[in-house]
């Protein structure tokens, strides 16, 4: 009973049952919990939904590999108890690509941020989508570089305030879902950290598919972006997501641009295609070469 604590009896009486571990701990490096993420940060929900998805699919944890880049959400690889690799900034996708090609039996997922995947790693991700590479990419889009103090990223909405855009951002953001859909992704979805059930379902769905799968998860960053853009606490941002996220499955990704962080936005599964993946193409072409 290492986690013994002093709580007054009145509280214990009125409280729920005290526990020392969580059912998710079997897939967490629980010696590293509590994690470093701020109160209310949306990174935690990505981890909890991912774990639940793996559990419900009953995937052998030894066959799951997590790759992340650098950033707050980049810590995901360090907290999940699978084979995991915390790569250098922006290089999660090439690492994951190499891993999948060398070890096709693994379920390779990249969990990383908007800055890591679309700024320094921007080139890699479009090419992975173009190749329909067999990896799942979950992007925590908090509109900012959280870890380094809240600079603007290629996903920061125009006009927003960040430490590097103190007068407002003059740049337009990428429409992440459209970028990857047009590059060739097989599966593209967007959820938020409050839509945990649907997010979990989406991760489950994506884990059972092949090819390049992308799930954008809008997450509150109350410390970095939220504070500078009058988005309030994580509760306020989550309520906003709940009220303004409109489910629109199959929407044309050109119409799902996130223009303004405070207006309605589309969520759902936008693209779900069955098309030849990189590994399938490789298989087909290499076997053809051999027959000659």
């Amino acid at each position, binding site marked *: 009973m290492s986690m013994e*604590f002093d709580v007054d009896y009145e509280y214990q009486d009125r409280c*729920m049952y*005290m526990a020392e571990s969580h059912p998710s701990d079997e897939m967490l490096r629980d010696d590293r919990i509590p994690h470093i993420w701020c*109160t209310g940060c949306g990174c935690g929900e990505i981890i909890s939904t991912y774990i639940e998805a793996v559990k419900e699919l009953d995937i052998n944890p030894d066959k799951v590999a997590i790759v992340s880049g650098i950033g707050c959400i980049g810590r995901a690889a360090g907290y999940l108890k699978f084979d995991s690799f915390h790569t250098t900034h922006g290089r999660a996708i090439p690492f994951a690509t190499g891993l999948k090609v060398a070890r096709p039996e693994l379920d390779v997922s990249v969990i990383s941020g908007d800055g890591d995947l679309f700024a320094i790693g921007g080139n890699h991700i479009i090419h992975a989508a173009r190749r329909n590479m067999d990896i799942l990419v979950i992007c925590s889009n908090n509109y900012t570089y959280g870890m380094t103090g809240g600079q603007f990223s290629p996903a920061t909405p125009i006009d927003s305030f960040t430490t590097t855009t103190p007068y407002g951002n003059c740049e337009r953001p990428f429409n992440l879902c459209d970028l990857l859909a047009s590059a060739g992704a097989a599966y593209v979805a967007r959820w938020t950290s*409050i839509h945990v059930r649907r997010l979990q379902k989406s991760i489950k769905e994506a884990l059972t598919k092949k090819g390049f799968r992308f799930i954008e998860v809008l997450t509150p960053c109350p410390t970095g972006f939220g504070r500078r853009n009058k988005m309030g606490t994580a509760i306020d941002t989550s309520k906003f997501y709940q009220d303004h996220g409109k489910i629109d499955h199959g929407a044309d990704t050109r119409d799902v641009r996130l223009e303004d962080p405070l207006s309605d936005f589309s969520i759902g599964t936008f693209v779900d295609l069955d098309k030849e993946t990189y590994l399938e193409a490789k298989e087909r072409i290499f076997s053809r070469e051999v027959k000659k």
Partner: protein
Amino acid sequence: MGKKPMKFIGRGLVDKGDKKSAVGKIYLIIERCKGCNLCIEFCPKDVLKESSVFNKKGYHPPELIEVPGEKMCVGCGYCSLICPEFAIYTEIEEDEKEAE
């Protein structure tokens, strides 16, 4: 104290057609809580509230809104998924289900 976690049962809301509504048992790992209040705010049954106790890090973990009360946890498991800290989870209590 020292409660060993059992199998996680929180899956989907309790079937509305079923007259017996399940009763959830809530487990809290008090020292992991960072007081974000997401579980309190988004519990569909509003069974939680912020307590006045401090944990070691100085946050107020949640507690039941009333004991015993009308408002009962149904073990839907939403708090477990939404908690960013892996600090709370629920189980459905089978015995109480029978008792109803």
